């Protein structure tokens, strides 16, 4: 069963428990990965992370702003004992800058985990497939645990897993678009074809139902940022996303009933009292 493929243990016999998500050296209880961008303040960031229940938070690597008067740093608001920090290469449009950014993040955080993004253009922020493959190969060679943001092309995901990606992370829809998982069948096929590493839907979710639907497909994780950070009430949305992740994941593990066209009575069809038969059945019986 796929659900057990990336876990240390079998799915729990206790129905309230789930196996952890393994990412390289890290073991996560929560399957929701949450970004730290676009919040109104660092305080709000910290509160939303806490409420989301996440164990893994993404950050970006940027030039130190030397003109700005020295303010507090994001790092002061993120408890490194509580969260695994996942640095990204967001904003990189070529292999070289993505690799350089990864090397800098590894020195800064002392972690070999990196979320690789090699983007194609600024309007769609869709991943550049060739650059993404090349950068994955190089980073794996340099000893990184690479979590790769990619398109939902199943063959692309196979190639990334073959290169040794720690996680393959197809976009549900464009980054920050809130469109949800536009092609669930592609995700289904990816889950069929890729068994070497976890599949995490990265980007595009807007609502709790999007997160729930992604987990119901069987993905091992969902990574989101804008859906919480830009909601009218980010803290309440963080709670919604936490619950949606749990509901969707539990639905997948529980195994939903197949859809059918006609009704299937939940109550016994035998033992009905007299006079309740349908008119058409009355004469026949």
């Amino acid at each position, binding site marked *: 069963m796929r659900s057990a493929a990336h876990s240390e243990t079998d799915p729990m016999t206790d129905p309230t428990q789930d196996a952890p998500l393994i990412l390289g050296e890290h073991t996560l209880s929560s399957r929701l990965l949450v970004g730290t961008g*676009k919040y109104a303040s660092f305080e709000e960031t910290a509160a939303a992370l806490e409420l989301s229940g996440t164990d893994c938070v993404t950050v970006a690597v*940027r030039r130190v702003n030397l003109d700005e008067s020295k303010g507090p740093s994001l790092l002061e608001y993120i408890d490194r004992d509580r969260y695994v920090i996942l640095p990204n290469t967001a904003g990189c449009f070529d292999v070289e800058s993505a690799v350089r950014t990864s090397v800098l993040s590894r020195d800064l955080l002392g972690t070999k985990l990196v979320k690789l993004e090699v983007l194609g253009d600024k309007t769609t922020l869709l991943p550049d497939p060739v650059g993404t493959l090349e950068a994955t190969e190089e980073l794996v060679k340099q000893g990184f645990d690479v979590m790769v943001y990619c398109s939902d092309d199943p063959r692309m995901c196979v190639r990334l897993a073959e290169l040794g990606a720690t996680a393959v992370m197809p976009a549900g829809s464009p980054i920050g678009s809130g469109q949800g998982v536009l092609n669930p069948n592609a995700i289904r096929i990816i889950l069929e074809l890729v068994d070497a590493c976890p599949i995490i839907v990265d980007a595009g979710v807007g609502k709790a139902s999007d997160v729930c639907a992604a987990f119901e497909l069987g993905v091992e994780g969902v990574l989101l940022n804008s859906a919480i950070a830009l909601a009218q009430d980010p803290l309440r949305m963080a709670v919604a996303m936490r619950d949606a992740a749990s509901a969707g994941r539990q639905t997948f593990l529980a195994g939903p009933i197949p859809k059918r066209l006609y009704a299937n009575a939940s109550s016994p069809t035998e033992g009905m009292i007299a006079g309740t038969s349908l008119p058409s059945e009355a004469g026949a019986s």
Partner: protein
Amino acid sequence: MARGPLFWDDVSGHRAPLQHTLKIVLNGSPSELADAMSVAELIEDLDLSPEQVAVEVNGELVPRAERAAHQLAEGDAVELVTLVGGG
């Protein structure tokens, strides 16, 4: 603090110490340092927390352990990065 060698103005004959400035490109902007210094001293000079930055000189990482020994040279392109919010 360890500094670079003193330079003497032998044109004037006064043998007065001459300010040795160092031109580098810091995060994409031309910048002039008052003195020769190491990467570690630059971080200190800019009042940055050493544990919250990573440094690249001419496209190559200067690992944390090598910051003190790595002297900056004229024309170096220095990138100082930190972590910010992101998805």
